Each structure stands twice: as structure tokens, then as C-alpha cells.
């Protein structure tokens, strides 16, 4: 069967089970959009147009995080392509599987500074797992197969495929059933389970440090079993949040800079740190020498390049986390020693672990908790980046994996609106919550149009402190309160703003207004609702461990 390149792309998307894609049309992808038009008529693939290509990639990213599937985004050449860069880097730092398709000028015009030509392979080389430019339509099928393989194989991540216009119009024979093998030869894996069991058995105070790899491998249940079997408390990185249900009594929450006191304290006192699917980010570890001062480190990760990269490792197991834990668990005896885990549980309920304001007061914490009361266990919570993100990470009672969609590694302000759209679509237009702030929201609020056009019931909870709060907080602590460019004094009327886009908004200044607005907001199921919550401009995220420090230097008040 002879097909055009654009048709081959659509066939390959279908082959990989893709039913939703995000993007924005343009000159060098018209042929692809012509095929998308036909696919939509056939009901095979639905395309969602966003307000901006960055929003499209964040939406594909949010879709992938909430569903576990591969996100797909499409953009035209030149500015369309460069607009995807922040979205791609966001997915790369958090290991989210994406396939991003960009158009490019015809191969005959490449390298001549043609209209809307940029070297996307060059631009995205350091922020993709791999990228391709297609130079022959005959290579397109193999390239796309390989792109999906790389995005999902090993540590996941984004892959970009740049398809010049003449590669989309060119034809070649296509056979859907053609088989490809992309595995590399002679990959030896070190799997000495007996040695790992020795490490674990000789530990009196083991601690599980859980990262996003646990969610990627769907290994939450086995991590819980491990915790119960060896009586180890559990802490996590930002990307690991939602892997362990908040109500598990040995779960201490986020470790690190803005983590919970109990989690950082127990980590600092453990004698064996079992790190599962995590890369020891500086935001988690603080000072790396102090971080592993008292303990040995046993690392479990799918990617050998992560072993010992940021913190030296005493022993490691390389491979799929779920497979490794399934093989390891039967070899470990049930621990009878509960002294350590009981101590950790006491830390969880100690006064030092609650540096927040009182529950009944109108505060960021109480707003987040009040919103959570109205949500289901599987409601996806998206965030932007800054103080509101940390408050959400600290206090939203996440119960199920993949219910938190947040930009961890790159810390992308403006991520939230697009991501919430993707997450809602991944869950069949289910209600999704976005916690955002006046700073972050102004960066990508244009994506409200996408939520309105597609009748997505996204509850936008905007915490307005009239500041770029996280930077303002650092200026308070480290720069003698010189608030350079962080007090915004903007006059935006958010209620009118969302009404102009076609949604609904409420202004909130106290707990009573919050409760009343929530009741009204939750009756609206066919579009976005914004709660403009005006909060104390001086509220800080606590506790705080200063950069390159340890729990000994924690600022708790």
C-alpha cells in the first residue's frame, strides 16, 4: 500500500494507540492537519487546538502524567517549533514520555535561512531523550516506531521528530505489520538480590526514599509492601508524591527544602537509605555530604546513568522497579523490630511537623484542605510553580498514583493551565483542580480558551498574594527584604477575565466565601471555574531548609 508521509504519521499514531493529540497548525504541517481532518471524521484521532504551542506540549505532558500513556503534540516549523521548547524541557526533566512532531521547510530549503526555518534537532538535542529529522519518506515509519520506543523504554522522556514538508507529501509503501528491533546488544544488568537482602537485613533504621520512577513503573503497591515488611518509614521527592497514599501511617511526605520536618528528620537519622526511582535532586538532598552522612545508600533505578550520579551509592539494583521489588520481596524476612518505625510515626505527629497556621483560619493551607474535601480520591490535581505548589505538595491529601501533575525538575511557571487541560482530557473530561497563583497564571492563562472550547470542568484555585511569593520569600530570608520586582500590584480582575473567555469566576476573601463559592462552582460541569482567593501577601512556605544545608538548619517558624 502506497501512502504519503502525512498518512504514514497518522497510521503510526493509530498503531501506538494514540486517540488524542494536541497542537497548532501552520504552513509546514498543513498536510498532517489534512489527514487529522479525515481522522476526526472517522473518529480515530481527536486533535485539540490550544492557544499557543507551549500550552499544547504542557497539555500532552499533563495527559501523559495523568494517564500513563504517551503524550503527542504537533507544531509547525520556526516559531511554532521554538514555542514547544519549554514544554519539551519540562517533560525531559520529569521523565514524561512525549512524542513531539514538528514540521520543517522542504529539505531543498533547509540550511538557507528560509521562511520559518529553525534547526529544531540542534535546539532540542540537550532537552530530549533523542530527536530525529526525517530525510526520506521511506525512513518515516521506522523513525516513528523508534521515537515511541525511546520515549517509553528505560527512563521515559520526550522525543522530537522533525518532518520536512516534502517528507509529508512524498510517498512510499507502508506495511503496518512490519517488525522492528531497537534493543541494544550486550546490556548486562547487575542484579545481586542476596547482597541487597544483606544490606536490608543488617539495617536497624531503614528509610524508603521514593521518586517519580515508582509512579512510572506502577510500583506503588510493592513499595508499600516493602515498607511494611522491613518496618521502614517512607518519604518522597516532589515527583514521588501520589505514589504513596497520604493516609498510610508510616508515610512522612516530602523530603527536602520545603518538605515536611518528619520526613527530613527521619531521613537524616536512618542507617540505610533505599532510594527507589529517584535522582537525588538538590531540592531533596540539600547538602549532599550531610544527606548521606549517617547512612548507607541502596539505589534501585531503571537507568544505570542515575546510579551514583548525584550521591555515591553503596549498592544498586538496575532495572524495572516493579520487577525488582517483585523478585526482592519474597527474599526478605518480615521484620519484628518496630522501635524505629514507631519513632518515625511519632515524628509525624510531633508539633515540629506542623509549622502551619491554625486550621480554621483563612490561609493557603486551609484553602487547599477545604477544596480537597470536595474532591474524589482519583481527582487529578495540577499545579503551577511557586509557593502554592509547595503548599499543595505539603498538604493536599493525595491518595492515588498519577493524581498530582506538577513541574518538578524544571519548575515551569505557566505549566499548570495546559497540563490541567491534558489531565482532564486523559480522564474523559473529569473535573480537575488547578492550584495556581497570580504570578504563574499570568504566564499561560490564554489556555483558558481551550478549557472553555472543550467544556472542561477545570476548577482553577488562584492563590493571589500580589507577589512572586517564592522569590519574595527568598528576598525576605537572604536579601534583607529588598523586594526587587516581586510585588506585582497588578489590577487584573480575574472574575471578569474568565467571564470574558467564557467561563465563570468567584472572588474569595474568607472561609465562608470559599465554602459558598465551592458549592456554586461544583454545580458547573461544562466549563472552567476560577476561584480568585486573595491571601496574605506575607505568607511563607515553611518549613524551609536553606540551599546546601541539612535538617539541622531547618527554618520552622
Amino acid at each position, binding site marked *: 500500500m502506497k501512502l504519503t508521509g502525512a498518512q504514514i504519521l497518522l497510521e503510526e499514531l493509530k498503531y501506538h494507540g494514540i486517540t488524542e493529540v494536541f497542537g497548532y497548525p501552520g504552513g509546514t504541517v498543513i498536510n498532517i492537519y489534512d489527514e487529522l481532518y479525515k481522522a476526526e471524521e472517522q473518529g480515530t484521532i481527536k486533535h485539540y487546538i490550544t492557544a499557543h504551542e507551549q500550552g499544547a506540549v504542557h497539555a500532552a505532558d499533563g495527559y501523559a502524567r495523568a494517564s500513563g500513556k504517551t503524550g503527542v503534540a504537533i507544531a509547525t516549523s520556526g516559531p511554532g517549533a521554538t514555542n514547544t521548547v519549554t514544554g519539551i524541557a519540562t517533560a525531559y526533566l520529569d521523565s514524561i514520555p512525549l512524542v513531539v512532531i514538528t514540521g520543517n521547510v522542504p529539505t531543498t530549503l533547509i540550511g538557507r535561512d528560509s521562511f520559518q526555518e529553525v534547526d529544531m*534537532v*540542534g535546539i532540542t*538535542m*540537550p532537552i530530549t*531523550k*533523542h530527536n530525529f529529522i526525517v530525510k526520506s519518506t521511506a525512513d518515516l515509519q521506522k523513525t516513528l516506531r*523508534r521515537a515511541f520506543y*525511546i520515549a517509553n523504554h*528505560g527512563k521515559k522522556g520526550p522525543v522530537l521528530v522533525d518532518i520536512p514538508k516534502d517528507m509529508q507529501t512524498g510517498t512510499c509503501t507502508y506495511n503496518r505489520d512490519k517488525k522492528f528491533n531497537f534493543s*541494544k*546488544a*550486550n546490556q548486562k544488568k547487575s542484579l545481586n538480590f542476596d547482597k541487597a537482602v544483606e544490606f536490608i537485613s543488617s539495617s536497624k533504621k531503614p528509610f524508603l526514599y521514593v521518586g517519580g520512577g515508582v509512579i512510572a513503573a506502577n510500583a506503588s503497591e510493592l513499595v508499600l509492601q516493602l515498607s511494611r515488611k522491613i518496618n521502614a518509614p517512607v518519604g518522597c521527592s516532589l515527583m514521588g508524591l501520589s505514589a504513596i497514599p497520604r493516609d498510610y501511617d508510616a508515610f512522612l511526605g516530602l523530603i527536602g527544602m520545603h518538605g515536611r520536618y518528619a520526613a527530613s528528620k527521619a531521613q537524616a537519622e536512618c542507617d540505610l537509605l533505599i532510594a527507589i526511582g529517584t535522582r537525588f535532586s538538590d531540592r531533596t538532598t540539600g547538602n549532599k555530604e550531610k544527606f548521606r552522612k549517617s547512612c548507607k545508600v541502596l539505589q534501585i533505578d531503571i*537507568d*544505570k*546513568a542515575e*546510579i*551514583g*550520579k548525584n550521591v*555515591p551509592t553503596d549498592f544498586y539494583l538496575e532495572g524495572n522497579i516493579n520487577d525488582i521489588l517483585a523478585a526482592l520481596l519474597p527474599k526478605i524476612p518480615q521484620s519484628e523490630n518496630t522501635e524505629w518505625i514507631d519513632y518515625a510515626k511519632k515524628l509525624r505527629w510531633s508539633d515540629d511537623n506542623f509549622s502551619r497556621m491554625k486550621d480554621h483560619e483563612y490561609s493557603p493551607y486551609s484553602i487547599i484542605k477545604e477544596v480537597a474535601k470536595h474532591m474524589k480520591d482519583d481527582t487529578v490535581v495540577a499545579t503551577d510553580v511557586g509557593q502554592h505548589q509547595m503548599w499543595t505538595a505539603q498538604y493536599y491529601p493525595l491518595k492515588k498514583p498519577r493524581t498530582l501533575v506538577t513541574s518538578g525538575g524544571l519548575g515551569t511557571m505557566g505549566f499548570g493551565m495546559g497540563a490541567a487541560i491534558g489531565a482532564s482530557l486523559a480522564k474523559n473530561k473529569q473535573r480537575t483542580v488547578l492550584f495556581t497563583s497570580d504570578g504563574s497564571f499570568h504566564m499561560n492563562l490564554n489556555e483558558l480558551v481551550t478549557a472553555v472550547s472543550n467544556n472542561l470542568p477545570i476548577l482553577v484555585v488562584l492563590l493571589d498574594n500580589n507577589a512572586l511569593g517564592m522569590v519574595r520569600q527568598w528576598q525576605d530570608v537572604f536579601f534583607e527584604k529588598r523586594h526587587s520586582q516581586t510585588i506585582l500590584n497588578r489590577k487584573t480582575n480575574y472574575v471578569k477575565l474568565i467571564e470574558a473567555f467564557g467561563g465563570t469566576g468567584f472572588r474569595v476573601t474568607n472561609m465562608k466565601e470559599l465554602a459558598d463559592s465551592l458549592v456554586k462552582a461544583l454545580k458547573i460541569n461544562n466549563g472552567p471555574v476560577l476561584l480568585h482567593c486573595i491571601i496574605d501577601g506575607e505568607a511563607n512556605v515553611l518549613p524551609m531548609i536553606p540551599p546546601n544545608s541539612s535538617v539541622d538548619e531547618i527554618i520552622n517558624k
Partner: protein
Amino acid sequence: MELKNYTLTILVDDLPGALTRITGLFARRAYNIDGLTVIKASKKGTSLVTIVTQTDDRNIQIIVRQIERIADVQSVKIV
């Protein structure tokens, strides 16, 4: 840590950009390249890249693992 000279031989797919991916990794991670050669390898469709770099025992392992992660790289050896 004691700095030593290491020679890496890297077998790569003979594709445009493969060398850029390797040298780009060295540049991004601030590893210095003291010597570099590229020749066609005996295996069809592959090239052999030889890189000399100065670092310590722990870092060279990290460098090797990061090069192995590049999709176009087939294998890496420390000579």
C-alpha cells in the same frame, strides 16, 4: 580525588549528529576533551570515536553511563 587520563572508545551508528551528541554531552557536563578521533569502524554503518579526557575514578564511570544512554551509541569501553 586524583586526576588521571582516560581513553574511551565509543562505537556509534554512523549518522549525522552522532558525534555532536557525544561532544555536546561532554560540553554540557563540563568534561574537557583532550583528544578526539573518528574513523569508520569495520562493522557496517558504524564509526569508532576515541576520546581522551582527564578526570577521576568515580566521574569516569558517570561519564561512561551517560554516553551509553545516547540512542546512537552502541557501546563504550575504557581502554
